[in-house]
């Protein structure tokens, strides 16, 4: 039984766009049979929470030196490039 990967989803306030993104990722990854635990937070909390994540997804610019892969995207809001980002996320989680 594989341990779930931990995904941290961050946005400015931690309540609006991260909610949409978290839901969208949850559904997309479930469809692909990937076991993930998703946590939402504010962008200001990312640094302190990065240690407990395997992947970080943000809708706003984020620090890159966190030791964890970071994907910055608004694709789950605009729909533009959504499929490509999902593939990027899957790849990052499988590596």
């Amino acid at each position, binding site marked *: 039984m594989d341990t779930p990967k931990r995904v941290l989803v961050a*946005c*400015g*306030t*931690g*309540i*609006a*766009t991260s*909610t*949409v993104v978290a*839901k*969208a990722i949850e559904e997309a990854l479930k469809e692909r049979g990937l076991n993930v635990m998703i946590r*939402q937070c504010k*962008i200001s909390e990312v640094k302190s929470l990065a240690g407990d994540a395997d992947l970080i997804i943000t*809708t*706003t*610019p984020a620090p890159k030196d966190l030791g964890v892969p970071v994907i*910055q*995207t*608004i694709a*789950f*809001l*605009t*729909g*533009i490039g959504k499929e490509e980002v999902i593939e990027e996320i899957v790849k990052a989680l499988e590596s």
Partner: protein
Amino acid sequence: MSETIAKLINQSCVLINCNYTKAEEVISAVGMKLFEEGYVRDTFVKAAIDREKQLPTGLPLGGGVNAAIPHTEIEHVIKPALGMATLKTPVAFQNMISPEEMVPVRLVFLLALEKPKAQVEMLQEIASILQNSVLVEELLNENTYEGIIQRLKQA
């Protein structure tokens, strides 16, 4: 449109075909309506304007019309609500993911969110509206509240 945008949108908080030149003017105009209707505190407008400057919400949608979804911390909200503005001429908002870029916006949703994750459906509905470029264009062509609600129901 499921129940949730319908439940949260109030006619007096929908401003149609407005003329503004700056993002803060739009946020202020819609925000004042939300305040007058008792949805938000008197600190909401300033907080939303400040938030937009630090953490912008401009979203380029790839069609002819772009959107922005300004909002702020839950402490400024009394009851959840959705305000909206359609703009006659584009107003520049900074791009959410690349703040150094300006996005010419004609559709603004001002979100008054009261708790984390509580308005998930409304947010998902807004996302699916934004992802429907035909619908976004049609929304901008509506001149009445009734017309706008009809379009939102098609989402």
